C-alpha cells in the first residue's frame, strides 16, 4: 500500500518536472514577490497592497516574501538565481541601480526583465520655515557665496536622496555639506532642532511638518508640481534644469518568457488601477506612476549610469 502511494507520488512528481508548462496556462500556481527589505517598510507596504489587489486579475494568489539583509542585496541575489518562469518576481527600486556601484554585487539591473514601474516619489530639499531663505534663488545665492557652509541632511550615505542632493548641487553649480543620518526621520528631527540647515527627502518624510508650517519646500525636483502643494514650483520652472525621483517597480529574473512577462504586466497594471489599491497608495502618501516595461528599462539604465558617476564622486 505504502509503496504504491510512493510510486504514484513519484510518477506525478516526475511528470510535473518533465512536462514543459505552456505559457498559455500561466499561472498554474501562486506567484511570489521577493521583497529584499523587512516587513513593514514603505516598499513592503506598497507591494503587499498591490499583491492583494492583483491576485483577482491574475487568477492565482500573489504572495509576498520578505528576504531582507545586505542592504537589499540578499533578496535581489536570490531573485536573480530563481528559475525565470514568472513565478518569482522581485521589487526593483532605486537602490538596485546604486548598490552595484558601491560594492561588489552579483547583480545589476541588467539581470532582470522589467515588468512595470508602480511608484515614483518626488525628491526635494526642505528648510525650516524660519530660515532666512524664502526662495530657491536666495538659497542658491547664499550657497554660491558660501560654498560648503549649508548643511544638508540625508537618510543615509550613498542612499537615493543623498545622491540626488549631490546631483542637484552639480546641476545648480553649488556645494553643500552633506550630513548622513540613519533614515529620513532622524534627518528631519535634526532639521527641526536646528542642527542642520536643510534636508534631502522623499515624501512622506517631512511632509506633515511642511503642512504644519514648520518646514518649507525650498527645492522640488519632480517634473510636475505636487498635488498637495500646488503653490510650490519645481526647480525646473525656476531655471535649474534638473528632475530626479525615487522609483519602485517590479522585475523578473532575466530569461522569463515574453508572453509570461506580458501576462504579469497586464495583471499588475490592472491591480494598480484597482480602487482599493489607489486608496491604499493615497493613504500611504506615495505617488503612483505607471511605466511600461520598455520605459521602465530606460529609466533604470539612465539612473544606473547617473548613480555610477555620483558614487564614484563620493568615493574620491
Amino acid at each position, binding site marked *: 500500500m505504502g509503496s504504491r502511494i510512493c510510486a504514484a507520488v513519484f510518477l506525478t512528481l516526475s511528470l510535473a518536472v518533465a512536462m514543459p508548462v505552456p505559457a498559455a496556462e500561466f499561472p498554474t500556481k501562486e506567484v511570489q514577490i521577493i521583497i529584499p527589505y*523587512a*516587513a*513593514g*517598510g*514603505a516598499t513592503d*507596504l506598497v507591494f503587499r497592497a498591490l499583491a492583494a489587489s492583483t491576485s483577482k486579475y491574475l487568477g492565482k494568489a500573489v504572495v509576498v*516574501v*520578505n*528576504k*531582507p*539583509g*545586505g*542592504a537589499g*542585496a*540578499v533578496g535581489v*541575489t536570490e531573485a536573480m538565481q530563481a528559475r525565470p518562469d514568472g513565478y518569482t518576481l522581485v521589487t526593483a527600486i532605486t537602490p538596485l541601480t546604486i548598490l552595484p556601484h*558601491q*560594492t*561588489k*554585487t*552579483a547583480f545589476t539591473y541588467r539581470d532582470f526583465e522589467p515588468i512595470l514601474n508602480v511608484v515614483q516619489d518626488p525628491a526635494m530639499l526642505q528648510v525650516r520655515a524660519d530660515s532666512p531663505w524664502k526662495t530657491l534663488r536666495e538659497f542658491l545665492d547664499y550657497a554660491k557665496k558660501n560654498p*560648503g557652509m549649508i*548643511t544638508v541632511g540625508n537618510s*543615509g*550615505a*550613498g*542612499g537615493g536622496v543623498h545622491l540626488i542632493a549631490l546631483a542637484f548641487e552639480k546641476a545648480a553649480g553649488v556645494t553643500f*555639506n*552633506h*550630513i*548622513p*543620518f*540613519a*533614515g529620513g*526621520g*532622524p534627518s*528631519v*528631527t*535634526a532639521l*527641526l*532642532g*536646528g*542642527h*542642520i540647515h536643510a534636508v534631502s527627502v522623499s515624501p512622506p518624510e517631512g511632509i*506633515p511638518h511642511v503642512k504644519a508650517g514648520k518646514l518649507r519646500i525650498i527645492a522640488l525636483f519632480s517634473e510636475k508640481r505636487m498635488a498637495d502643494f500646488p503653490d510650490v514650483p519645481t526647480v525646473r520652472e525656476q531655471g535649474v534644469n534638473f528632475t530626479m525621483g525615487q522609483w519602485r517597480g517590479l522585475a523578473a529574473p532575466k530569461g522569463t518568457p515574453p508572453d509570461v512577462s506580458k501576462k504579469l504586466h497586464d495583471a499588475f497594471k490592472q491591480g494598480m488601477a484597482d480602487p482599493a489599491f489607489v486608496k491604499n497608495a493615497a493613504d500611504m502618501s506615495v505617488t503612483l506612476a505607471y511605466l511600461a516595461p520598455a520605459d521602465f528599462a530606460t529609466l533604470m539604465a539612465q539612473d544606473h549610469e547617473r548613480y555610477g558617476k555620483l*558614487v564614484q564622486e*563620493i*568615493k574620491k
Partner: protein
Amino acid sequence: MLESLQYLIGGFSLATTTQNLAYCLLGAIVGTLIGVLPGLGPIAGIALLIPATFGLNPTSALIMLAGIYYGAMYGGSTTSILINVPGETASVITCIDGYQMAQRGRAGPALAISAIGSFIGGTISIFGLTFLAPPLAEAALAFGPAEFFSLMVFGFVVLSNVTGTSLIKALMMAVVGLILGTIGLDPVTGDARFTFGSTYLLGGIEFVAVAIGIFGIGEILVNAAKPAEVLEQRVLVPRFRELYPSLQDLKRSMGAILRGTGVGFGVGLVPGPAPVIATYASYMLEKRLSKHPEEFGKGAIQGVAGPETANNSATQSAFIPLFVLGIPFGPVTAILLGALLIHGVTPGPLLISEHPQLFWAVVASMYIGNFILLLLNLPFVPLFANILRVPKKILLPLVMFLCITGMYSVNNSILDIWLMLSFGALGYLMRKWAYEGAPLLLALVLGPKMEVAFRQSLMISHGDFGVFLLRPISLIFLLATLMFLLIPALRAVFKASRKRAVSEA
C-alpha cells in the same frame, strides 16, 4: 497637563479595541510565562516574538511587546520565592528574602506583596511617563549629533560601571559589541566594511540573532549543563487562600513599595539595565532604613516588596528615554527599538507628535496591562508555578525549538540561525566566565548610532573637535562621564593611601 489627559483618553479608546486588548492580554500572559521560566528572560522573549508581530500594525505590536517586558517583571518573582531560582535577572535579589519567607511557610504573602508592589510601582511610573514624556520630547529637539554622541559615551561608561562585578570585563564586552557594530555598509561613505566579500554581512550583524543567541541559547546551554536536581526540586506551590498578606504585612511593606517606586522611576531614566539596578538599589535602601536590618536575609517582607516594586517602576520609566530621545538605555529597550524600526516607526523627539495614536495607545495599554497582570498574578500564581514541574529535558528542547523557528522567521534566513547558534555558544562561555551580555548587545545597537553622531558632529563643524566641548549639554555629559571614570580610580587611590597611613602609623 490637561492636553496629556485628553490624549490619554483617546489612547484608552484605541487600547480598548478588542484586538488591542487581546494583544495586551497576550503580552501580559507571555511575559508572565517568560518571567516564570528560568533561562528565558524578556530580552530573548521579545526578540523571539518580533516575527509574530509582522502582520500587526505597529501599535498592536508594541502593546504586545511592551506587555511582555513588564509582564516578565511580575512573573520573575515567582520562581525566586518558590524555588530560590530567579526567573530573570531583575528578580535575583528577591531570592534572598523571598525564598526565606517561603521556607517559613509564608510564600503566599511574599507572592501577593510582589504582585501588589509591582502594580503600584508600575502604575505610578506610568503616570510619570504620561505627564513627563511630552514636555521632555519637546526639550529633546535640542539634542543634535554632538549631544547624542556625548550622551552615548556617558551611557556606555555608566552601563559598564553598574553591570556585573568587573568594570574591565564590562568595558571589554562593550568594545566587542562596538567592533561587531562596524560590520556592514559604512554609514558615511556607503563602502562595505569587514564583510569579506559576503553579501550576507552587507547589512551588518543581525542584532536579533545576537540577542536570542546570547540571552536565549546561551541560557539554555547554561541550564542544560547544571545538575538536574537544581531545576527539578520540589516546588512548594501555595494554595489560593494562603495568598492573602496580613494587615501587618501590608503596613510593613507600604513604605518599601513607595520608596521602591521612586527609586525605580529614577533608575529607569538613566543608562543601564534599569530593572536590575533598581532592585539592588531598593534592597540596599530598605536594609539601611530598616529599624531591624538583622531581619534582612531571614525573610523580611520589605526585602521582597521594595525590589519587586522597583523593577516594575523602572521598566515603565525606561520607556521615557526610548520614546523621547530614540536612544535605548538598556538591552530590553534596545530590542524594542529594533522592533519599532522593523515596523517603520523611528523613535525620537518627534515620535509623540508624529505618531500620537501609537504613543498614547501604548501608554494607555500599560495602565490596562498592569491591571490585567495584578488580576492574573494574584489568583493564578499557583497555575503559572506549575510550569516549573515540567522537567527540563522537555522544557529546554522546547525553548530551543522556539528560538530556532523564531530566528528563521525574522528574515527567513538559514544563515541567521547559524549566527544565532554561534552567539549561543559564545553566550554560554560568557556566562561561564562571568562576562555580561548586556554591554555587548547595547554596544551593538548603539555603536553605529554613536559612530554616525560622532562623524556628523565633525562634518558639521568642519573637523573641529571643539564642537563637543562648546555645546553646553554635550559638555555636561562629557564631564559626568569623566567623573564616573575617575570615581573608582580615586577610591582605589584613596584606599591605598589610607592603608599606607595605617601601616605607617
